[in-house]
């Protein structure tokens, strides 16, 4: 209890917690869960965008998309490394992902059905991710905060790229404009769900807030996202798929319609459009690569034995 109090004092004083510092077990567990879930999201997130790598409509877009997918893999790597500072091995975390024990962001369980989805993911999904992540750059745990600074910088680049794809489509042929609108129609609501359940129903927030892992509530972040995004959609000349959306002059915020929380629950429970495909693809890559990883280990062992001899 004294330890806990001392820890809370440090957090309250905005001191960064570092890997070798004493920390409550629950803090460690919470961070491992959150950081690894974030890492898994980056890794699974390569799939919906990777789906269009071989079909990107111009070489410039193809290269930018490949660079983006590569960045996501890089984010996954930093984040696994940050989690490892808390005393868990990457292999164990990956195993949790493959066996379905660990979660990843539900947004990646929606399919990319047209090129415009690549724009929508950059603009909306990365936009929402940034909203979630910017406060994490000031998170109490040092390695996580530092990883997030780097991640956020790259994400905002991706977000601008995505918006620019949407802008090109929205100013393009009628078929392109329809493609952009269709993508917005399909991605809007799932993106609002990315901020998690409404505050009233959220389970992890209290301690996370006290420990300065989480600095804003789900509903606060969601509102910020909507306020930032609605004018962008208007600028694109696209219609948000929410008949209840209206600007509230009193509060200065955009008020939006009811979110289908059942859908979020279903997707989290594993019944989204692509959950099975995403995990199957990840397992398949893992299994197909087993002989390569074994070869690398065997080779390293041989070399070590030689050096020892």
């Amino acid at each position, binding site marked *: 209890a004294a330890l806990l109090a001392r820890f809370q004092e440090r957090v309250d004083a905005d001191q960064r917690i570092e890997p070798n510092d004493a920390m409550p077990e629950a803090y460690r567990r919470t961070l491992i869960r959150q950081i690894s879930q974030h890492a898994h999201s980056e890794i699974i997130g390569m799939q919906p965008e990777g789906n269009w790598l071989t079909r990107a409509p111009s070489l410039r877009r193809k290269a930018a998309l490949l*660079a983006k997918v590569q960045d996501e893999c890089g984010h996954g790597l930093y984040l696994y490394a940050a989690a490892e500072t808390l005393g868990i091995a990457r292999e164990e975390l990956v195993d949790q992902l493959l066996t379905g024990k660990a979660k990843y962001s539900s947004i990646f369980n929606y399919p990319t059905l047209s090129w415009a989805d690549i724009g929508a993911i950059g603009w909306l999904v990365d936009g929402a991710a940034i909203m979630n992540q910017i406060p994490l750059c000031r998170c109490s745990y040092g390695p996580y905060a530092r990883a997030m600074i780097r991640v956020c910088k790259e994400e905002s680049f991706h977000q601008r790229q995505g918006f620019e794809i949407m802008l090109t489509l929205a100013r393009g042929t009628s078929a392109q404009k329809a493609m952009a609108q269709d993508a917005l129609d399909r991605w809007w609501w799932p993106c609002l769900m990315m901020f998690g359940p409404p505050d009233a129903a959220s389970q992890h927030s209290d301690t996370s807030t006290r420990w300065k892992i989480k600095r804003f509530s789900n509903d606060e972040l969601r509102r910020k996202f909507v306020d930032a995004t609605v004018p962008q959609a208007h600028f694109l000349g696209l219609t948000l798929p929410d008949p209840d959306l209206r600007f509230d002059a009193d509060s200065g915020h955009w008020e939006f319609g009811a979110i289908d929380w059942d859908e979020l629950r279903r997707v989290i429970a594993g019944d989204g459009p692509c959950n099975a495909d995403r995990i199957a693809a990840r397992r*398949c890559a893992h299994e197909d690569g087993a002989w*390569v990883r074994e070869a690398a280990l065997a080779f390293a062992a041989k070399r070590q034995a030689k050096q020892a001899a």
Partner: protein
Amino acid sequence: MAPGPIRVAETPLVSYLLRRADDALVLGHRLSEWAGRAPTMEEDMALANMGLDLLGQARMLYAHAGEVEGRGRDEDAFAYWRDERGYRNLLLVEQPNGDFAVTIVRQFLYAAYAEPYWRAMMASGDATLAAVGAKAEKEMAYHVRHCAEWVVRLGDGTAESRARAAAALTELWPFTGELFEVDGTDRTLIAAGIAVDPQTLREPWQRTVIQVLAEATLEAPPAGFMRRGGRSGRHSEHLGHLLAEMQHLQRSNPGAAW
């Protein structure tokens, strides 16, 4: 741009540029097919890296081909609107990814050629080719190093990895003769001081390959039949499927900007 596939009136220099650009694009595309499927995350990064290098080379070369051709065609016109028979890449680079050993051996065999090739091209009389050379030479040196490490690990790893590496080598070896092919286009440009004579690259290529294979405890396949045809658009049946997927969206929307 007029809708429909294009046919390029290939002067020697345009043809020469398209050959190199197509090599880079097709191999880069193959690497991009790996995204999210590599044996490790580190290797996902590396394969994407190499793919990006190649896509970058392709774009510079296509842009230059467009300038030299002088008909206002941009990089996408060449990439998306030429049919299979108009593609000029080596057969080696269009071969399917296969398992990781095939991908690595393919990349190694190509890079071991491309590194000295681009280094020599830094002296090209064509300023753009020389500039591409300066950039590509460093990139390909990394590809050689990275792939050589894997060739050694796979060759000298487990029995399975060794068998797979050896099989990949046997499968791809017949495509390496084409690297050193010289035809009229080459001769014209070699004489003009624009192109390097690929025959001069055989020795450095062999040195690299033999040294790495030795370290990998693998043997180079015996000299034998060498497949050719890529430079004149006589491809294997694999390229057409790659292009169908790659070009579908552009071709479905002629004239659209993306």
